[in-house]
């Protein structure tokens, strides 16, 4: 039997938690997503199962029936070992427009200064590489993105803002991301994405899925206005990028 890379823990009386090594790592994420797909296809076929992947963990819960936590913990490593030809799940690559104009970026100048670069260099650095979606949570459609270059890492704002507008692109610590709804927030705001990532009228409501990659593309104010309207009336076409070649 091959080595099982995760530990299983009960998560209260109704759920089970699987934890891979405590790292933010693409291979770990792909293994989690692949196992998730396999479980939903081969073993957890009854309705009601929800499998929640975030960073290095997968949580299993079923709302329709009582979960026998001990039994599930016993059988999960066996299922993992039985999984053949561990193919990575299919992930997609998205290019999201971001307007970095001062109007949407109250912290751009201060952040550039703290990082020792010109605002143009910061925009260049922020759009230079794809980011991996390690999970979706906190708010509906909020993406946990990994892959921030060293030179963009900085601490959060000392005082969180009570009101960060929907679409705001934030930077803090090892994280960058888009606020899907207007909410309080402690990240530095450096731009705005005009198109919604989460539309509750659609199924699936979130265009992006865990495992996908996101790349930001700097756009002008005019293009921002256009995409904003396209997004509001639901005709914006989300742009796909090249997936593998760019990594």
């Amino acid at each position: 039997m091959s080595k099982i890379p995760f530990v299983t823990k009960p998560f209260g009386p109704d759920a089970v938690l699987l934890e891979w090594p405590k790292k933010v790592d693409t291979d770990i994420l792909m293994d989690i997503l692949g196992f998730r797909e396999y479980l939903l296809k081969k073993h957890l076929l009854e309705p009601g199962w929800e499998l929640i992947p975030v960073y290095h963990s997968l949580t299993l819960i079923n709302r329709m029936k009582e979960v026998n936590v001990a039994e599930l913990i016993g059988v999960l490593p066996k299922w993992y070992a039985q999984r053949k030809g561990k193919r990575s799940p299919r992930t997609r690559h998205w290019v999201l427009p971001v307007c970095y104009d001062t109007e949407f970026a109250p912290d751009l100048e201060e952040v550039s200064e703290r990082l020792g670069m010109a605002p143009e260099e910061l925009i260049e650095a922020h759009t230079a590489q794809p980011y991996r979606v390690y999970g979706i949570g906190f708010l509906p459609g909020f993406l946990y993105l990994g892959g921030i270059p060293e030179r963009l890492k900085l601490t959060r704002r000392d005082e969180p803002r009570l009101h960060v507008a929907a679409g705001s692109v934030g930077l803090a610590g090892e994280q960058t991301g888009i606020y899907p709804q207007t909410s309080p927030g402690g990240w530095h705001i450096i731009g705005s994405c005009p198109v919604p990532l989460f539309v509750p009228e659609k199924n699936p409501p979130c265009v992006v899925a865990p495992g996908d990659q996101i790349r930001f593309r700097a756009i002008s104010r005019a293009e921002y206005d256009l995409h904003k309207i396209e997004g509001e009336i639901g005709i914006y076409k989300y742009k796909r990028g090249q997936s593998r070649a760019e990594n």
Partner: protein
Amino acid sequence: MLKINNPGFYTSIQDLGRFGYRHLGVPVSGALHLKAFKRANALLENDPNDAALEITMTGPDLEFTEPTIMVLCGAPLEASMDGVTLEMNQVYQVPAGALFKSGHVREGLRTYLAIKGGLKSELKLGSRSQFYPITLSGTVKKNSLIPYDPYADFSPKLLKISPSKSFGDKALIAYPGPEYEYLEEKHLNELFNKDFKISKNHNRMACQLEPTLPAHTIRMITSATLPGTVQITPSGRLIILLRDGQTTGGYPRILQLDGDSLDRVGQKQFGDIVCFEKIKQP
């Protein structure tokens, strides 16, 4: 239609919840005191998932434009229909044009007003539970109209049941959470031997407790959270996540409440006392 003449303090439409979208960050929502909600639907011989009003602390004033059958379950509420005082857990015929008025809850926090066939409000991602921004609003608004199917003839098998008192208990049954093992002796001593007060920071998402436990330096990578997860912030504050709570979090998950205890938390208000009763994982 059900017309909202006055929405009350915080009245929302809830069903059993919104499932299947937690991996996209969508909280499950649903009635906070599930047992009372289910009892209301059972008395009306409804589908268990039929939507009802969840009333918080101070109730709404309503007008029923069509005949229906209604029942109130959960926290005892001062309420009347066309001037006649209403009892809890009792099924009533509602004539077209009836006016429902309500005041404060006498005990607990949340009351369910269910009608025959349920409220037919907007269905979003498989649920009618109000949660902004999945639904247009998180609560019912003054003068809004909520559709329902009229019912004139219905003879319930049970007219009234005796109210349950279970939500008065302060003890919450708690299983060790995923990060429980990292707690130190000084945390454990206080966690299971102290009473905690519900702070004024409590809503459908989460409920903060007072006083705090000692600060800690446990670090973790963001992971899933569930309704009933008890988190501890770096400064030692305990937070119980409820049904509108976020689906992921970065604070250590030290305890996990069972369903009945989560229901009980849903009936606690500012100043109420709770304590944790540790249970070993079966």
